[in-house]
């Protein structure tokens, strides 16, 4: 009798442990996927801040919205469809990884573009100032010459 009850307790403990390990694994997967999502969003926002253009941003948003569709599909699956679940989870992770990589590439490109644009804007200021100074200088010179010429052309008329 003691043996039977001991076996029963042992079996129950094993089942409880298996359930705990399973739920911990699912919970850990969920936390990891949420963190991966946050990282992807942060990288996309960083790309936008670096100066990504609307087309580049739209491409990233389309991929992220596709990922939401996959998440909805995953939620609607029954717990028995393990194969399909694993496939969708992998697709979601791959989409997030792809978005992350693309966002970083876009951020680098956008950052370079922004730096070049800034350089052009500030250089234009210097070039503009030089041109305007030269124009002012020659303008003043010509005006002075004209006034000298006019002075020498003056005639004294007796009244």
């Amino acid at each position: 009798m003691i043996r039977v009850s001991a076996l029963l307790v042992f079996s129950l403990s094993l089942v409880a442990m298996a359930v705990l390990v399973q739920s911990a694994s699912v919970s850990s997967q969920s936390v990891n996927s949420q963190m991966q999502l946050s990282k992807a969003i942060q990288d996309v926002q960083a790309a936008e801040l670096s100066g990504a253009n609307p087309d580049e941003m739209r491409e990233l948003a389309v991929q992220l919205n596709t990922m939401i569709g996959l998440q909805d599909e995953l939620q609607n699956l029954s717990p028995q469809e393990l194969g399909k679940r694993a496939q969708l989870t992998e697709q979601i992770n791959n989409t997030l990884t792809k978005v992350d990589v693309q966002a970083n590439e876009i951020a680098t490109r956008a950052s370079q573009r922004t730096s070049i644009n800034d350089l052009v804007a500030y250089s234009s200021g210097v070039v503009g100032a030089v041109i305007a100074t030269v124009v002012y200088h020659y303008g003043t010179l010509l005006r002075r010459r004209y006034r000298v010429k006019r002075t020498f052309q003056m005639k004294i008329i007796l009244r």
Partner: protein
Amino acid sequence: MPVFLTLLIVLESVAYATTIPRPSEKFFQLYMLGSTGTAGNYYPNNSSSLKLGENVQWNLELVNNMGSLQYVSILVKLGNQTINSPNDTLAQASPAPLITEFKHFILNNETWSIPFDWQIANYTITADGHLRIHSFTIDNATYVFENSPVCPGINSCSFRLIFELWTWNVDSNNFQLGWSNGDQQRIAWLQLWFNLVPAGPR
């Protein structure tokens, strides 16, 4: 030399003003349009008293003015007269039961338009005269309630659909009600009331 320096300062200031991003207020706009795409004609025959199975066409619109891409979720809840609305001061969500939610990544300055066609699919009146909505049909999908809010009777109760905006918080890795604006928590929500009337001519 003074001329050059003056011009340089002026033109570089212009360059600075054009290249530096301007700080702007960050916010969302959440609003509902009626069947004609305007702020009107929300209900069939302009009456918020609805019959079972009567179709209502709305368009829920969200505009992102946050300055960056945002992950948003709009929660649709069913309230009655007694359930609390979302609290703007404390930034608390309504305890009303959830019907469904819509999630989307919305670009900066983008307007997300959600067609929201719905009808009451089923309701019952208990022996003591309480009214309970059991299911809704929204965009051809049926949503069944376990514990929906009750009303004292069909002639003395208004229901409302509450729409709450939630955004993804990258620090907490979860959705939060509204959005953070510096130290402040801002929320956006709206509600539309309706009554149930027994089937038959009004």
